[in-house]
């Protein structure tokens, strides 16, 4: 377990599988654009990009020593630099970019910021996703 700021996880590859996007849109029950269909070449809404989906929860949460009973998801920021399409294959690079501890009413709280870059083959960063989680000490 290590929560060292700057820690980089090994790069992984993620293919934006149409089935995954379709399941996501089905879950929401709201189309990102009217008449949307998750077919190759379709736009991918920013909310789809979450390290859990694209990289896997276990390697990140194991590294961070997260106990799921005491972990709360705080939110996400997604910056989109270039269009991303269903069917694209991207390199995924998560990194620990922030660890802050605070004393709350219910004990110590640890805020962890994970920043994940998504790159094309040519090295262009197409999207950056920043997720915040809060771990309670009890």
């Amino acid at each position, binding site marked *: 377990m290590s929560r060292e700021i700057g820690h980089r996880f090994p790069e992984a590859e993620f293919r934006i599988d149409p089935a*995954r*996007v379709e*399941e*996501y849109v*089905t*879950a*929401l*029950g*709201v*189309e*990102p*654009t*009217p008449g949307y269909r998750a077919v190759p070449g379709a*736009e*991918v*809404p*920013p*909310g*789809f990009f*979450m390290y*859990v*989906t694209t990289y*896997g*929860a*276990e390697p990140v949460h194991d590294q961070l020593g997260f106990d*799921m*009973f*005491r972990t709360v*998801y*705080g*939110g*996400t*920021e*997604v*910056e*989109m*630099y270039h*269009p991303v399409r269903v069917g694209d294959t991207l390199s995924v690079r998560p990194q620990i970019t922030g660890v802050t501890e605070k004393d709350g009413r219910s004990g110590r709280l640890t805020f962890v910021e994970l920043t994940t870059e998504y790159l094309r083959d040519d090295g262009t960063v197409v999207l950056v996703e920043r997720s*915040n989680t809060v771990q309670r000490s009890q």
Partner: protein
Amino acid sequence: MVLHVGDVLPEVEAPKMDRLRLAYMAVSMRDPNLVHMEDDYAARSGLPGVIAHGTFVVSYAGAAVSRVVGVDAIKRLKVDVTGPVFLGDVLRTRAEVVDVEPAADGELLRLDLTVNRDDGQTVGRGEAVVVQRSR
């Protein structure tokens, strides 16, 4: 449709949260966290029952914007999840254009985003930056 400061986008009313939606999201995300699946597990975290993935809140806020301007117009989406969402909750979005600044190929609009449960509690708060191309 040209957007101006003060414009409020059409509200997105999400369908009532149910277990099938949580199951689809868990599968799409490959999320192993049982707090979204099993009431007993959620109870051990001190919750009255399963809670929805935070992704729902972030995504409904994003959908309120993308349904008007398109996905590719969104340059930035930031949503803080500020409260839990339970089975039976109906989420509604509010998106308002609050700022505009010139950009190379048009304008950059900033929108304030809020996602509320039907009991009035705010479960998401954030902002989006979208590009509005000059015509």
